[in-house]
Structures are given as C-alpha cells and as structure tokens.
C-alpha cells in the first residue's frame, strides 16, 4: 500500500504553541495508534537531547554490551562512552523505564480508546517546561484487514514532522524528567497508570501538538464516535508512574 503525501500543515498559534496535522488516507488500527505514540515519544526524547542516541540504537547497543560480544566498529564508542560504569547504569535505567512504559502503553491502547497523549518535559505534570501532545481524536479505527499498514503511517508521521521542521530552532535543554499522561476511559481497568481526576492540560511552557486524523474513509472518527461523545467526561487523564530521567554521556 502506498501512502499519499500531502503537504504537512504547520500552524503556529499564540504563545509559542505549534501544531502539525497529519491525515492518513484511510483507517488505522488501535495497535497503530500505540505505535505512533511510541515512535513519537522516542523521537522527542532524542530530538530534545534526553537520550544521547536514538532509542533503537541505544537499546541495541546496550543489549550487545550486555551480551559482551564487542564488534570492531563499536570499539571506539565503547571506549569513549560506555566505559564509565555510571553512564552504563543510567542508560540501563532509562531503557528499563522506557520498556516498561511501552509495555503498559500497549496494554492501555488495547483496553480503551485514547483520545490524547501528553509528553511533558521538565517541571511537574501541571507546569512542564515543554509539552508535546498527540491528538488522536480525528482518528478512525478499523480492523487489521481494512486499515492502512502501520509502518507506512509511521513514515508519513515522520515525514510530516520533518517537513514542518519543528525541532530545529529549539534551545538546548539540560536533562529533564519526562512525564507521560494518557487519556483513557475511567473504567478501562488499567492499574499501572495513576488516575489524575482533576488534571488539566497545562498552559505553561512550549507546546507542540500533533493532530492525527483519517481522511477518505467510511468509518466514524474517534471524536464523532458515539461512545466517546456520549460520555466525554468519562475520559480522564492517567499518569505513568515512572518519570523517565534523561541522560547524557558527557555531563
């Protein structure tokens, strides 16, 4: 399947808030939504200097190190970066936290519709330094057969982000705590995430919103989905109980 590339819509709004809209030409799966969230989170972590290497590389690198089968081309990196046991420990910690986060996100997406996800950098959940939002309210869900391939959609998402060039003019930041908030149904039964009944999306800090939607399809969007609309106040925020702490090789 090919995914048509529409020019990304980049809309700067008041107060340093920027939004990027991505329209997928068809239905997507729930699992797909989980992958968009995951990949975007990994991307933000690397782009905002909370990880010294892109997540996949870091994970792969660290695993090989654990297996202790060094390859020639890695020797230099190993010597420079990873010889420090402190770095290694921090790296394992971050990877462990993220892995757990991804596992539970996957469960969350399978249990409930997720209209919005927030990635908060620095500060607290109510006053972060930077806020990244994935808005899935325009998404239309479908089964595996009738939906677009997830990989193609992820490519389209990143292509849009790349064209919108949202990360290049940001100031460098120190390592920060990263909090993930997920909106889900009150009765979805997830027990890992902590419900935050009074949570309001903060207005403080820099904000980037990625609006995902589906165009030309037969199905209804998430926001026009009867279930969601019927009880929008039954959708509450959940906070991941881990704060992922970014790290650097040189500090």
């Amino acid at each position: 399947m090919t995914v048509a590339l529409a020019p990304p819509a980049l809309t700067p709004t008041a107060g340093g808030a920027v939004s990027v809209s991505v329209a997928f030409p068809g239905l997507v799966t729930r699992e797909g939504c989980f992958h968009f969230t995951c990949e975007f989170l990994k991307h933000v972590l690397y782009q905002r200097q909370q990880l010294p290497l892109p997540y996949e590389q870091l994970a792969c690198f660290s695993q090989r190190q654990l297996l202790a089968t060094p390859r020639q081309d890695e020797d230099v990196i190993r010597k420079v970066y990873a010889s420090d046991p402190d770095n290694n420990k921090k790296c394992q910690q971050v990877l462990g936290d993220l892995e757990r986060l991804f596992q539970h996100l996957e469960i969350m997406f399978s249990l409930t519709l997720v209209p919005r996800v927030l990635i908060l950098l620095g500060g607290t959940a109510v006053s972060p330094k930077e806020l990244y939002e994935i808005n899935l309210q325009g998404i239309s869900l479908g089964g595996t057969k009738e939906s677009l391939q997830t990989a193609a959609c992820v490519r389209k998402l990143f292509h849009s982000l790349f064209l919108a060039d949202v990360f290049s003019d940001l100031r460098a930041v120190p390592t920060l705590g990263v909090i993930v908030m997920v909106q889900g149904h009150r009765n979805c039964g997830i027990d890992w995430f902590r419900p935050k009944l009074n949570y309001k999306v903060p207005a403080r800090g820099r904000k980037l919103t990625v609006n995902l939607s589906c165009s030309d399809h037969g199905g209804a969007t998430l926001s026009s989905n009867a279930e969601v609309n019927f009880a929008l106040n039954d959708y509450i925020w959940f906070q991941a109980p881990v704060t992922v702490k970014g790290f650097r090789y040189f500090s």
Partner: protein
Amino acid sequence: MDEAADDLKQDPLNDCESLQIHVEVHQKPNSTVKKEDIKGSILRLLNRHNIVFGDYKWTEFDDTFLTNNVQSVAVVDTELKLKERQPIYLSDCNLFIHIFHLNEEGPSTENLEEENENIIAANHWVLPAAEFHGLWESLVYEHEVKSDLLDYVTTTLLFSDRNVNSNLISWNRVVLLHGPPGTGKTSLCKALAQKLTIRLSHSGKLVTKMFQKIHEFIDDKDTLVFVLIDEVESLTAARNSFRAGTEPSDAIRVVNAVLTQIDQIKRFPNVVILTTSNITEKIDMAFVDRADIKQYIGPPSTAAIFKIYLSCLEELMKCQIIYPRQQLLTLRELEVIGYVENDVSKLSLVLKEIARKSEGLSGRVLRKLPFLAHALYVQTPNVAMAAFLQALSLVVDKQFEERAKLSDCV
C-alpha cells in the same frame, strides 16, 4: 453541597442546625470513580452513623463500593468550632463533603535558567500532596490559631472571587507567622495550603523560594498558588540598620525587590503568600505592614504538650512498639473524673505530670522525645506503656540538663 445538606436535614429545630461540618474523603490512588458517586455513598454512610463526638475517622466500610474506592472518611476540625466536646447530630448540620486524591509525587525543583545550573531556585508541590497528609492534625495550637488562619484565607479568596475593588478595600494576601524556632510555623504554612486546597476543592500548588518566575506559576487562574517564604527576615532585614550603617547596600536592594514583587503578585486573585520568621524585630516595617495577619506562634502549653504526647503514644501503639495497647484518657476526660487516681487514669496522670515538666520545650523537640526515650532507655522491639512513660520522663529531665549545660558553656 447544598443538596447534601438538604438530604440530611431532617430536624431543623436543633440548635446546631447551622453548624458547618467538614467531611474529608480521601479517595484511593487507583480509584477512578466520579466524585458524585462517592458523595452518594458517603451521605448514606453518614446517615447510618448519625452521631459523632468530635472528630471521627472511618477507615473500614461495610459498603464494598467505599472499600474499593475510599481510603478514609474523616469528620474534621470540629474542635475549631465547638469549644465543648458534645454530640454532633450530622443530619442537622450543614455538611461540606470534600473528596480529594493525594499526589504521590514529591516536590519538583526549578533550577535557575543558566545551563548546567544546579542551584535550586524553587521547590514546587502539587497539592494536595501525600507528603503533607496528616500534618494539619499533628499541629496542636490554641483553637483560634488554626481557625483564624483558615477564616482569613477563605475571606481573602472570597473577596477576590467577588472582585471587591482593592483600591477601596485593601488586602494583601500576605500571612506572617512569627515566633520561636521549632513551634511549627513552616509546617503550619504547608498544612494550611494543603487544607485550603482540599476545602476549596481547587487544584493547588505550593511554591517555595523563588520569586522571579512566579508569574508563570500564577497564570492558571483556576489553581490556587501558595508562595511560602521561610525565614523572611533574611530577605527583608530592616532597612533601618542600613541607615545605622551596618547593613550593606546590596541587602537594601533585596528588600526593595522583595517588596516590589509582593506588590505585583498581590494583584493576582489566586495567590496567597505565606511567610515565617523567628526574629520579628528584624523584619522591615514596610513588610510587616503588608502582612494582613500577623500570627504569633508560641511554644506549646501544657495542654498542647499533653495532646502532642498522646498522639505520639497512639502512633507507637499502632506500630506495636508500645504493647499491649492501653487506653489513655484525654485531659478533658481527666478533668471530668476530677483527676482521681485509679486503674484507668493512672497512666494518663503520669503523662500529665510529664507534660507539665516538659513546659518550655518546643514542638520540634517534643516530637522527637519518644524516639530518644526509646533509643536511650528502652531499646527493645516492644515495651509496656508504664515502662515507656518512665523512659519518657527520664528523657525530659535529660533534655533540660543538656540545655543547662549548653547555656553554661555560653
């Protein structure tokens, strides 16, 4: 809130009809049910248990819905309104039910803007915080202190809410608590912020230290922001001493900056500035004038000391360090029986004597004495009440001896 009161109002002839009773409901951290649903169950619970004598806390429920969703239900602060302990008929009272979730996260720190800066500019708590849970109850003062502070801040926020013109009636949103060290001024500020967040069922924040970026925190109009400035005399040492030539000019600039900041902040309707000081004389008069409430927090009275000890012993019995459990009488109960010594009152009278000779010690010292008593004179995993009281008595004497030695050295 009103329909809650209507539900329970059956006999409006009773004299405590207008009595306002606050019920704090601590929702379990993983509970996601709506407040309205909890409220219904709570009202049914209170209907079944219609009479309480003073403060009362439920932690076990026969209703499975409450068991699953609620940690505790507490009728609180009745002693702030009622001088005498008397039966309270909940169905006749004006009930205010506050349902809250605690935030388990600790404070987050706000660093200075510069790169790689490790200087902490501010601590920042999201209220109500788990860290401050139970703090309010642990602070023992004369009745008026706590209720005055609550009433003051409530009025402050009411005036802001109704948009009272601040040029005609001026109020500054500044509270100054002063008094000797260890009397719980800082704790009281924190507890007050927590209490008000729960009471007004706002979301709240407590910010310490930082002044410069405070505006960013205030922006959200729905959030109550408490700014805690500890030891305010260090920031606002009297400018008079500058005229006497003993204060460097930098210090003057700091005072001026702080005063200007306060004047700016007080325009925001959702801010309360809480300050504490050990040395009131040193504070700049211009600052003292800005504080609407200047509350002296003194060392605890014998009655307060007794209460503090009682709560300490209760905790040790709960943790089974003091074992077996012994029922201790309160001062009022002792008074009722006329301080007659018998099997029931014996231990309580011993405690009263210890409280009497502890007079002059600060709350901070008092709260650590049970620990010292155990460490120095007990050392076994569990101990009987009588033996523990003996140890406590010894440790109080030792405390005064040490004090005498210290003052001799000086």
